[in-house]
C-alpha cells in the first residue's frame, strides 16, 4: 500500500489538517519529524510520496524555509535525491514551497542551487485571504484533468512573492485569478504581487509541486470550498 510522508519540523503548523485532507482521499499518511530523519530513526524511501506542509519552520529564521532547506540538503541530500530520482511525487505548501525553493528542488531539481525565491508580499504584510486559482496547462500528475478550472482556497502568508531569475525554468501550475477567472496582478486577488500571477509551479517532470495557497484548508465538508481536495485526489490516482 502506498504511503505519503508528511514532513514536519519545529514551527510547522499545517501538518494535522494535511493528514485530515489525505484521509479523505484514502491515501495513508504518516507524520514524520525532520529530526527523526536527521537522526536516522526514519527514512524517506519507505514512502511513495511526500508533503512539506506550511508553517514557520525554525521560526523563519534567516529567511522563510531556509533552515529546513539547509538541513534537508546538507544532511539528507542523498535520500532526497534517491526519492526524486525514483519519480515520487513531492508537494510543498506555503512554507513547504519556500523550503523547496530554498533547497533548489524547485524550479529545476538542482539540490543546493537556488533558482527562485519567495520574498515578502508587495504589501509588506501577512495576507490572510481567500483566493481563486486558475489551473494552467501543465503535464503534472497533481493538476491532471483540472486545466482551465478555477480552484478556490485560503491563502495566508507574509512571503509569497515569487522571483525567478530564469523564468523559463519555472513551469506554472496555478495562477491567482480575478472574479472573471483571468490571471491577475491586482491586489488582493493576487495577495502577494507575484509577477505573472504565479501561485504555484512544478519542476519539469511535473512531479514536484509547490504552491503558496492551502489546498488542505479546502478539503473537508466543513470547509467553504473543497477544491483543494482535487489536488490530493490526483495524488491518489497517481500512486
Amino acid at each position, binding site marked *: 500500500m502506498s504511503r505519503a510522508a508528511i514532513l514536519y519540523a519545529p514551527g510547522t*503548523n499545517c501538518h494535522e489538517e494535511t493528514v*485530515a485532507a489525505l484521509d479523505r482521499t484514502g491515501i495513508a499518511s504518516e507524520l514524520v519529524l525532520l529530526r527523526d530523519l536527521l537522526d536516522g530513526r526514519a527514512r524517506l524511501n519507505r514512502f511513495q510520496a511526500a508533503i512539506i506542509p*506550511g*508553517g514557520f519552520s525554525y521560526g*523563519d*529564521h534567516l*529567511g522563510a524555509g531556509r533552515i529546513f532547506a539547509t538541513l534537508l540538503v546538507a544532511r539528507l541530500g542523498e535520500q532526497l535525491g534517491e526519492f526524486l530520482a525514483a519519480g515520487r511525487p513531492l508537494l510543498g505548501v506555503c512554507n513547504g514551497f519556500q523550503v523547496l525553493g530554498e533547497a533548489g528542488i524547485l524550479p529545476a531539481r538542482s539540490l543546493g542551487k537556488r533558482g527562485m525565491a519567495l*520574498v515578502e508580499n508587495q504589501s509588506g504584510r501577512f495576507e490572510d485571504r481567500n483566493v481563486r486559482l486558475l489551473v494552467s496547462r501543465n503535464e503534472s500528475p497533481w493538476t491532471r484533468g483540472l486545466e482551465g478550472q478555477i480552484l478556490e482556497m485560503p491563502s495566508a502568508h507574509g512571503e509569497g512573492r515569487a522571483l525567478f*531569475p530564469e523564468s523559463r525554468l519555472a513551469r506554472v501550475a496555478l495562477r491567482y485569478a480575478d472574479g472573471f477567472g483571468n490571471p491577475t496582478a491586482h491586489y488582493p486577488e493576487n495577495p502577494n504581487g507575484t509577477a505573472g500571477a504565479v501561485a504555484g509551479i512544478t519542476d519539469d517532470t511535473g512531479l514536484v509541486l509547490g504552491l503558496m495557497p492551502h489546498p488542505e484548508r479546502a478539503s473537508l465538508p*466543513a470547509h467553504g470550498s473543497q477544491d483543494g481536495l482535487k489536488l490530493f485526489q490526483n495524488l491518489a490516482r497517481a500512486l
Partner: protein
Amino acid sequence: MGLSLVTRPSMSIQPVYVTFHDDAEARAWLGFLQRHGYAELRDLVLERVYWLEGKVRSERLAPLFANPIYQAISEKSALDPSRGPVIEIAYRPAVTDPETPSILAAAHALGEDGLEFARLSRRYQFSGIEASTARKLAERFLFNKVVERIREPGEILVTLRPTGRPDAVESISLAGLDAATLERLSIERSWYAPLSQLKVIQDHEVRLGRPHTDAEIEILAQTWSDHCYHTTWKSLGLLKKLQAATARIAHPLVVSAFKDNAGGLEFYDGWVITIKGETHNFPSSIAPFGGVATKHGGVIRDTLGFGKGAYPIGGTTVMGTMDPAMKEEEVPAGALHPQLILSESIRATSYYVNPMGIPMMHAVYRRHAGYAKCLALGHSLGLIPERYAAKEEPRPGDIALLIGGETGRDGIHGATASSTSMTGETLQKESAAVQIGHPITERRFATAIPALRDAGCIRSITDLGAGGISCAAGEMGAGTGVALDLDTVPLKDKSLTAWEILLSESQERMLIAVPPEKLAEAQTLLDRYEVAHAAIGRFTDSGKLEAVWRDQRVVEIEMDFLWGACPLDPIPAAAPRRQLQPLSIPEPRTAAEWSEAARRILGHYHCADQSAAGSRFDSTVQGRTVIGPYGGKNHCMPSGFYLSAPLYGKPYGVITAVAFNPFYGEIDPAEMARLMVIEAVTRAVAAGADYHDLALCDNFYTPRVRPDVAWDLTRMVEAIAELSVELGIPFISGKDSSSGTFDAGGKSIDVPPTLAVAAFGRVRDVKRIVTKDFKRAGSKLLLIGRVDGDALGGSVYADTLRQHGNALHSFGDARALRALWDALLRLHARGEVLSASAVGEGGVFLRQFEAALGSDLGARVQFEAVAALGERRRVQKSGGRRPPLQEVGAAPDAWRKDGLLFGEFIGSVIVEVGPSFDPAASLADIPYAALGEVLPEPRFELAEGNEIIWQEEMARLTETWRKPFREILE
C-alpha cells in the same frame, strides 16, 4: 546586575552584512515614518548584520545568510555614510538572540563546526534627517529598550556570548522598621506590597527567628500581588459570587469552572473544549509590541496548561486604546500615542499568533479616552480528550520538569508592577517588566505537549507567567511541597541571581510534574520535538517551597504561610456620583442629513472595516475554520461570530462570540455588564446555536480600587452572576484586572468600567449555522425583540456627536430573552432562518449594511414598522427595569427615527425569512416587526409608507466604511 562583556582572548568575531535588492520591509517603514511626523525622510535602507564568533569560513555560510536572487552579502557594510545617519540596533549583551540556535544548527549542518556563537543586528540608514532625529525616531518606533539597544559605532566586541556575574543572595530584615520605612522599601524594591502584607512578613520573620532572604520576600510580594492573588476581588468576595452562581446553575456540560488555567465544557465524542481570556494591559501600555505578543503567548499557555495539556484551536485579540487619531499634544504625559499602541499591537499579533498556527477568531479594536492604560485582551480556545481534562496532584518524588525557553532578565517584577497603577515614572522604572516573546519556542512545545500527555508523562502541567518559576512551582506543589535546585535552570542571562531566576517572567516556559518512572521517556520525546528541558527539582512531602542555589539555601517557606497568610485589606464601597448629561441630538430631517448620519456611523472607529488589521492574522490554519471573522461574497463582511469544526470529518462545531463596549460602562456599569452577556449570547443564538449549550468567560478591567470603584465592580459582578443564573448560562472562566488607572501630572485617568464577555459552546452540526449576509432578493426582514427609539445612550451614533448620554437600552428581563431565543431556535430548527444577526453597535442600520455588503444585495427598512414595534412593547408593558424616557402613551411617530435606525437594541435580532413566512404564527408572544425586505440591487433604503426618506448606493457607503481604519493604520 553587572552586565559586562568579559574578555575572551583569541576569539575572532566577524560581521556579515546582508541587504535586499528590493526591500519591502524598508519600504513599509519608510511610508509609515513619513506619515508619522517624518515627512522629510527621503529614503530608508535596511541592512541586516550577522556577527559570527569562532573559527569559521564565512564564505561557506554565505548561502545560509543570503539567497542571491533577492539578497546581497558582503563582509563590509554596503551603507555609504554620506547618504545619512545610520542607527544600528541589537539585542542587549546579556540577552540571547532567538535566531542563534537556528544559525548554529544550520552552520554545523553545513560543516562549519567552528562557529561558536552568532548574533544579529539591524542597521537603518535614514536619508533626509539629522542624526539626532534618527535616534529619536528609532527610540520611538524601532526597538524595545528592555531587550534591545543602539550599538554605537566603533564599539568593540570581545565576545558575543551573554555574560555577567550575578549578585549575591541578600538577607533582608524588616524587624523593627516603622510603617513609613517599610512602605519606602517596598517601592524602592518594586515589591509594591501594601503595609498590611509587609507587617505580616515582619511578624513572620520574628516567628522564623531569622531574616528572610531577598528571594523569600520577593516571592511573598509577588504571590500576594493583586495580579497573582487577586486581592481586590478576594477582599470584595467577587470570584465567590461568580463561582456560587455557576454552582447553582449546575450545568451538565461544565467539566471545569474557575479552578484550572481555563474553563472546560463537554463537547462530543469524549472531547472537552476550553476557554480562557487574559489581559496584559500594563506591559502593552508601555511596550505594545512585546506586551501584546506575550499577551497571546500567555493565554495560549493557559490552554496548554489546562488539565494535562489542551491543544489551542482558536484565539482573539481585543484592544481598547485612546483615540488613535488624537493629536500628539493631547496624549497624557508619559503615555504612548494610541496610534502607536494600535499599530504595534497589530504587528505583534501577526508576529505571534500566525507562527503559532492558531486561527484568529475575533480581532476587535475599540477606543475610549479613559484607556491611557490600554486594554489588551486575548482569548484562547482549546481542545482536549475528556480523560485528560483533570489534573492530578503531584506526588512526592515526581520530577519538576521545566520545558521551553531559557530564563532571562525579561519580565522581572511584572506581577507586582502590573498590580500598581501606572505613571510616566513606572513606565521608565519598570520597563524591565515587559517580556519578549518568541513564538517558535512556544510552537515547539505546543506540538510536543499532546504527545507527552498521550504517553502518560504528565501528572500535572502549568504555564509560567506572572511570578515565573516561583509561582508555577509554588502553586503546583501547594498541597505537597517542592524543592528546587536553581543551578539546573537553563539561563539566557548569566548575571541572574537566585531571586531573579525564581521570579523571571521569561516567556515560553511550562512546568510539568512528571512521574519519575516516566522521566526518561519524556526527555526522549522532548528531544525528538526539539524542545529544551531541564529537571529543576522534585515534589516533596515537606509542605514547603524550598530552593537552593550555589550551595546556599535561598528559599524555605511553608506552603501554608505562602497561600494562607496574605492579609486582605477591607475595601470600603460607596455609591459613585456620576455626572451624566442627557443626549441632545437633532434628528436628521433631509436625505442629506440621513446620509451624513449614516456615514458617520460607517466611518466610526468601532463600526468601520477593521480588516486592515484582521487580514494580517491567519484565520484558516488548522483546517478547522467553518466561518471565519470575514465572510459573505468576497470575504469582507464581518461575521460577528466564529465557528470551528474541531474534530476533522465530524459535523460538530464550536461557536464563539465576543462582546466588548467601552461606552456603556461609564453610564451604568451593572447594566453594561448585563448587556455584554446578552450581546455575546445573542450573536451565537442568532446564528442558530442553542443557548443551553453555551458557557461564558468574563474579563474585567476596572480602575485602581476606591470606594466608588468597589461599588461599581461589585454591582457589575452581582449583575452578571444573577443574570447567568436567570439565563442558565454559566461563567466558567475569567480574569480580573483592577489597576486601570494612569497617573499623569497629578491627574488620574481611569479606564471606563470594562467587561468583555466571550460566549462559547457546542453546535451539533455546523451546517445548520446561519450567517448574516442576505440570501435572496425579495426576502422579508423581521426585527425580533425589544426596541426603544430613545435609548441612544452609549451608542456609536451619540459618540459621533461626542455625546454619551445618561441611560442605556433596557433589554427587558431574562424570561423575555429566553422566550425570544427559544422562538429563534424553533425558526432555525424549521430551516426558516435564511440569514440572521444580533443588533449591536451601529444599530439596525449597520447590520443591514453588513448583510448587504456580504451578498451584493440591498435592503429597505420600513421606518413605521420599527416604530410600531416600540409601541407594541409599551402597550404590553413586557418587563423593563425603568420607564422609557419618553412619556408612556406617546404616538409611535414620536419615536426618534434616528433612534430606531441607530439605537443599539442589544438582545434584538434581525432575521431574513422567505416572502411567504407568516410571523404571527411563529412569534405570537414575542415582540417583532416587519422591518423591511431584501432588495435585488446593492442599495440601502429608508422608507416610511411609500415614501423613501433616504437611499444610497452600497458602493458609496462601502467606500466610507472601508477607509477610516485603514487610514489610521497607514
